[in-house]
């Protein structure tokens, strides 16, 4: 027999069972017939002949089984058969299947998606060679972790510390510049770096040369590295560009090389110019503009490097007490530093997903149990007819496995989609180089999860059912007494579900309350119909302050006459959109004594306060007459003024502002304006000080334009005016103030939405679970209820009994849940705004809500109980 015939026969055994079975039937029937005929021929009575033949033959079914065994592939055969039985029985109960698969699918999908994000953020190594040697250096003040480091301090750390193979500095924010070289003027995002950055990260340019230390020296020719995507997009991957000069903000900057594709340092930017060690913002000890990235030397440890750095910090504090007292440098493994902002968020999401999965599993377990009980009769019959207990167990496990497979497929499909949502929602900018995705290990996790759900929540019911199946035998159909224990089990499941749901609801309730409180914060200025944008003019076309001032004066004039525009404000930094730096400000006497108050600083064009809806409380606005030649003036916000002068009248007094030189800048206070939120809603209002633009001009300004009516397409008007004025100046980073503010709380909103979504799913699942238990209970007790009604029990009394038993479950669940939630929500304290983790309103709300929805879930079965017709109940059995 050829392999082909063999294979065909095996396949036929598996898939063409029916005709094979038929053949076997026919053959055996023929055999019997011949036997009978022989007996009859021998003169036996036909009836007796038949009996003898049958006795001689033995159990027909048993022989068939034996014959089937011979055909081989018994296990496979059973599997196919079990699968068929399962599918057939599923087809009869589509509701059950859809519920189970969807429920588990949601649980598995959420978990797999979260695992993918977690895996990408926590476990994948950074895309740099030997990335475990990389550390991030951030400033500490009085032992408190801070952020950016002073450029001057960095130079000292780099020179003195031996623990590092190299120590680089980068600006943590991207700075927007206008570039011109080949083609149009365009906006580029720049990150200033020290020359050793790429060597530290272990990357060599795709083409061109790496930076050399001399590139960062004072007076060296400006040099920059290009991002691959930018080079491709804007310069058509032109290799000729290497060694050429690009004009960035009007300054010629020589292109050293192009980085490999998909490489980035913390952020996605277009160009990496080298900063010179003598630039003021890089050299002042009181200006903190850099994050340090270091690579530890061979065999070096973070602890060892930290000890050495602490020593250097101590020496710096002694040498420069005014700027370096209590200042230190904190080293953190780079990966750890990158994820720390997301730890709480990820933790909350993981917890939420895990809770939903648990609830889903509990639900499916409940469903399987109920189904198992309902099938007890069928299973008993099969058991009596000769199906082994193992065989029945295998059958149930096969059914569960099919459910789990379906759920797994749904889950993994859902996961890809959900993960995209999570990553898009919870922006993980800082994670920079990390790219989440459905990796092999994520898929493996999904499969393992499926397997576990089958084992954990399929095996228990399967085992119970197999046991029950034998014990109740054919006695009482579904009304067996031994399912009492499984009912207790289901009740426990429901209590658990309600409790878990309460935890989720409390968590999401707190987030919603925080978010509402945050959105209710008054920013202190009018955000309506306010468009913001960035205008940066190049150095070569506008070489001095006069040209710069003239350009912006003309732009403002042009915009103000436009009928679509009601107000125009111009400032170096706009509130919330660009927080900027706060610097110390004090009376000249108090300056340098330490502990000076700080305020956010910006230069503003006259009329800015009016345009923004910031009130001038005393004195005057800055004016066009506040020129460099005139008295140096400043406008303070109320809070800044009172922190400097207390209750004294600040108008006419002089303040000393730290501008990064040895001597402070002295300015006369001419006005007091109302406080606004400068950096973000969570921090609330903070002190601000405003210089007159004419005394501190800048080429990079932010426009705030309010349109006269909501419909106006103001952006295009602004762009046209700008183009008419100078086509070489781009308008960039356009956003309405409303969008800016929404964007500033987008992370919170996303987390709130995701957790809220999970909570809704949890509520739904828990309700289905509760409903299921009660409905089943009513069905099971129908006879009893019928008897009671027949004996004169009031129908609403019966209903109340059902309602009470349901609400008791919900009540216990609620109590357990509240206790658990109190513990769990303290962990999310850092994400709450103006709401305590024990917020009574939230808890009360959750309790009322849970009570209300569970009542509804109990009400339906309760009502059904009252409809029990005593006659039908008796007859039904």
């Amino acid at each position, binding site marked *: *027999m050829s392999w082909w*015939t*063999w294979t065909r*026969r095996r396949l036929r055994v598996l898939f063409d069972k029916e005709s094979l079975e038929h*053949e*076997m039937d*026919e*053959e*055996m029937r*023929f*055999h019997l*017939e*011949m*036997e009978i*005929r022989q007996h009859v021929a021998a003169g036996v009575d036909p009836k007796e002949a038949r009996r003898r033949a049958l006795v*001689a*033959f*033995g159990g027909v079914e*048993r*022989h068939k089984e*034996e*014959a089937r*065994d*011979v*055909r*081989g592939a018994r296990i496979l055969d059973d599997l196919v058969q079990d699968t068929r039985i399962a599918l057939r029985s599923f087809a009869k109960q589509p509701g059950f299947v859809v519920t189970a698969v969807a429920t588990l699918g949601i649980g598995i999908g959420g978990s797999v998606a979260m695992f993918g994000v977690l895996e990408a953020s926590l476990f994948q190594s950074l895309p740099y060679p030997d990335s475990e040697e990389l550390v991030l250096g951030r400033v500490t003040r009085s032992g408190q972790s801070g952020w950016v480091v002073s450029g001057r301090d960095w130079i000292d750390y780099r020179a003195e510390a031996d623990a590092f193979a190299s120590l680089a500095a980068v600006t943590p924010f991207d700075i927007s510049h206008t570039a011109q070289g080949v083609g149009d003027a365009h906006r580029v995002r720049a990150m200033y770096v020290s020359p050793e950055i790429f060597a530290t990260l272990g990357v060599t340019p795709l083409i061109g040369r790496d930076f050399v230390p001399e590139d960062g020296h004072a007076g060296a020719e400006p040099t920059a590295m290009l991002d691959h995507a930018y080079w491709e997009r804007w310069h058509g991957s032109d290799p000729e560009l290497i060694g050429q000069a690009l004009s960035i903000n009007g300054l010629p900057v020589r292109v050293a090389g192009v980085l490999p594709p998909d490489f980035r340092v913390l952020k996605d930017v277009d160009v990496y110019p080298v900063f010179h060690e003598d630039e003021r913002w890089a050299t002042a000890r009181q200006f903190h503009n850099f994050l340090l990235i270091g690579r530890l030397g061979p065999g070096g440890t973070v602890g060892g490097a930290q000890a050495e750095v602490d020593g250097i910090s101590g020496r710096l504090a002694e040498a420069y007490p005014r700027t370096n007292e209590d200042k230190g440098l904190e080293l953190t493994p780079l990966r750890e530093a990158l994820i720390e902002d997301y730890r709480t968020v990820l933790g909350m999401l993981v917890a939420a997903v895990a809770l939903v999965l648990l609830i889903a599993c509990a639900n499916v377990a409940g469903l399987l149990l109920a189904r198992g009980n309902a099938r007890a009769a069928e299973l008993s019959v099969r058991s009596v007819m000769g199906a082994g207990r193992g065989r029945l167990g295998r059958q149930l496990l096969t059914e569960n496995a099919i459910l789990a497979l379906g759920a797994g497929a749904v889950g993994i499909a859902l996961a890809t989609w959900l993960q995209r949502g999570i990553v898009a929602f919870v922006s993980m900018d800082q994670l920079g180089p990390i790219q989440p995705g459905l990796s092999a290990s994520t898929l493996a996790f999904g499969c393992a999860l499926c397997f576990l759900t089958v084992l954990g929540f399929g095996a228990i019911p399967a085992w119970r059912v197999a046991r029950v199946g034998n014990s109740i035998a054919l006695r009482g159909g579904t009304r067996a007494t031994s399912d009492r224990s499984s009912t207790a089990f289901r009740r426990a499941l429901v209590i658990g579900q309600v409790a878990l749901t309460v935890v989720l609801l409390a968590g999401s309730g707190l987030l919603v309350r925080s978010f509402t409180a945050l959105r209710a914060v008054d920013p202190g200025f009018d955000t309506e119909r306010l468009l913001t944008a960035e205008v940066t003019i190049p150095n070569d076309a506008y070489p001095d302050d006069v040209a710069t001032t003239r350009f912006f004066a003309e732009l403002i004039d042009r915009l103000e006459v436009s009928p679509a525009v009601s107000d125009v404000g111009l400032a170096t930094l706009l509130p919330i959109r660009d927080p900027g730096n706060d610097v110390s400000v004090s009376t000249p006497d108090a300056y340098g004594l330490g502990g000076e108050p700080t305020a956010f600083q910006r230069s503003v064009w006259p009329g800015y306060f009016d345009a923004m809806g910031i009130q001038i409380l005393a004195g005057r606005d800055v004016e066009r007459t506040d020129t460099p030649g005139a008295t140096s003036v400043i406008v303070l916000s109320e809070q800044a003024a009172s922190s400097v002068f207390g209750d004294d009248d600040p108008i006419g007094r002089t303040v000393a502002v730290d501008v990064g030189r040895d001597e402070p800048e002295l300015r006369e206070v001419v006005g007091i304006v109302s406080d606004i939120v400068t950096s973000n809603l969570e921090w609330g209002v903070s002190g601000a000080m405003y210089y007159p633009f004419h005394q501190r001009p800048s080429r990079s300004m932010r426009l705030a334009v309010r349109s006269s009516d909501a419909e106006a397409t103001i952006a295009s008007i602004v762009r046209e005016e700008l183009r008419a004025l100078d086509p070489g100046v781009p308008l960039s980073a356009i956003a309405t103030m409303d969008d800016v503010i929404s964007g500033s709380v987008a992370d919170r909103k996303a987390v709130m939405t995701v957790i809220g979504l999970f909570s809704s799913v949890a509520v739904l699942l828990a309700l289905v679970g509760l409903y299921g238990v009660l409905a089943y209970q009513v069905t099971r007790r129908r006879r009893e209820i019928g008897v009671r009604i027949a004996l004169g029990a009031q129908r609403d009394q019966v209903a109340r009994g059902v309602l009470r038993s349901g609400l008791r479950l919900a009540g216990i669940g609620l109590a357990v849940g509240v206790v658990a939630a109190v513990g769990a929500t303290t962990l999310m304290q850092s994400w709450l705004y103006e709401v305590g983790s024990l917020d009574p309103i939230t808890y009360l709300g959750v309790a009322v809500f849970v009570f209300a929805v569970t009542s509804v879930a109990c009400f339906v079965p309760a009502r059904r109980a009252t409809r029990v017709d005593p006659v039908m109940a008796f007859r039904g059995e």
Partner: protein
Amino acid sequence: MAQPRADLLQGSLDLLILKTLAVEPMHGWGVSKQIQLLSRGTLEVNQGSLYPALYRLRDRGLIESEWGVAENGRRVKVYELTKKGRAALRTEQEGWRLFADAVDLILSTAEEGAR
């Protein structure tokens, strides 16, 4: 599975079936009757072993089955020896002879020893 008369060794049933079919193709019932007949009623093939054995032999490619018509006009499956089956019959027959002789030998020595 208590056998009423002589116990058939697994291998020996296969051999008997092959031998029976070597004479002429026949159906399952025919095979069982033929064995009974040839053994003069000593060997009765249990149907529960007969059909599995037939399927097993067919799966090994030693016999083939075809639908035919029985004496009473019923459709019936008729088994036939294949080329491979004939070869197998020869070797198995020889093997059986060797085995039977060996068993005979042992039995006779054992009797002597007992004496």
